[in-house]
């Protein structure tokens, strides 16, 4: 039998399998994204004291199987990991669902993802403590995109490098360029572009440069910034994220906080 391994992890999704088992997908700190079967998860409160449902932050114990990609999850414990508590607010659940689904879409199985784990766990802990805000959503999106290799540029024109501060009344977010272009360069970006105010572009630039914790204290970009990010994400994720519709109904893109 394979040796038991352990790593901190966050549950991305889980579903009941048979009468008593659950199939769980987690983002682990040390082994990337991992899917496994937890036998008796519905009955054993002892082995699975860390609940195996979305957002659960657990120390995961598992054994690999020689064949098949599902590992055997032997235990999940809260250990001394910071708990993630979202179930007292609808906006928290909605934004948290979106965060785990986006992470799930951008992470691939068994590729090292320690930074993604750090971004997701920090964002979910902040969400539980401070509640859902557009700044947190935008900061999370920018950080996770950066981790996935999509560093977006908002502080200057992608073509002529003119700073966003002096770009005039309007900039254009161009998905294919991964950032904004100025009015003068717009004709050279055949993809067109989505209008975004310099204020929103600069807000995204500030949020992107700050740590997650600091970014949440910043003022968010307006709806045009939120929509720019949503369009970019839509272009790189190959399926529509299921949680978006619910999130938008609870917390519209770029508008004020929910509640």
């Amino acid at each position, binding site marked *: 039998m394979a040796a038991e391994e352990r790593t901190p992890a966050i549950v991305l999704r889980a579903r009941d399998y048979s009468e008593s088992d659950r199939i769980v997908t987690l983002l682990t700190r040390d082994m990337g994204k991992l899917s496994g079967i937890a036998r008796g998860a519905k009955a054993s409160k002892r082995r699975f004291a860390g609940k195996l449902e979305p957002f659960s932050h657990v120390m995961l114990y598992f054994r690999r199987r020689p064949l098949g990609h599902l590992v055997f999850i032997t235990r999940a414990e809260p250990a001394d990991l910071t708990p993630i508590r*979202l179930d007292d607010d609808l906006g928290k659940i909605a934004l948290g669902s979106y965060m785990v689904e986006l992470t799930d879409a951008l992470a691939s199985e068994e590729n090292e993802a320690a930074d993604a784990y750090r971004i997701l766990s920090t964002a979910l802990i902040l969400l539980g403590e401070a509640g859902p805000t557009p700044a947190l959503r935008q900061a999370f999106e920018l950080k996770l995109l950066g981790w996935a290799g999509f560093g977006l540029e908002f502080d200057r024109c992608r073509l002529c490098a003119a700073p966003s501060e002096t770009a005039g009344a309007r900039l254009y977010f161009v998905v294919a360029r991964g950032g904004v272009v100025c009015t003068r360069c717009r004709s050279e970006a055949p993809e067109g572009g989505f209008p975004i105010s310099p204020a929103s572009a600069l807000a995204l630039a500030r949020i992107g440069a700050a740590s997650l914790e600091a970014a949440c204290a910043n003022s968010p970009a307006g709806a045009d910034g939120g929509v720019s990010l949503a369009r970019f994400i839509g272009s790189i994720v190959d399926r529509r994220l299921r949680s978006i519709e619910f999130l938008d109904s609870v917390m519209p893109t770029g508008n004020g906080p929910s509640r």
Partner: protein
Amino acid sequence: MPDKIKRGDGLPPAMTRLVKELSRLPGVGEKTAGRLAFHLLNRPRDEVIALAESLLEMKERVGLCSGCFGLSDTPRCAICDDPAREHDLICVVEGPADLMAIERARGFSGIYHVLHGALAPLDGVGPEDIKIKELLARLSDPGAVREVIVATNATVEGEATALYLARLLKPLGVKTTRLARGLPAGGDLEYSDTATLQSALTGRREL
């Protein structure tokens, strides 16, 4: 020559068919299905007829109650039709099994509303996919309902549903409460014991 021999599973086709149907049942594999089929073959004829008839009768007669959307073989279920029950006290549950669990606990004297699901953002299950509209319709008559107890499971989906309902019901002026915590972690109501359910009901708090 062996290629010319037609090999089945050694069973007459009528039994193979039964084994195939039985093995569709949850938790029943081909082996178990085979054992059940042999068992039925050896039972008296009237016993097997009773089983077959009860299957058909269930499928033909059991539908949803027009009042609470629980399972019923009459247009309105016995609970909704019981004048001794408090009709201004509605307990909202995710599924019929949860309704049965609360009935078994015997601590509840109101009526029910069965949602047939819970909000699950990660599975794309939204408010229009479960019987929330139908719940609002029951509350449209002002003063008809005194309190709504949200008895969804203690899971992310159950909590999301409870919070969503609280948002909808508060502006209507209907008192909305939630079962006390203390349901087992992982929280399926249908697996809770009677004592736990009773204390969760009496200890309910306003949402």
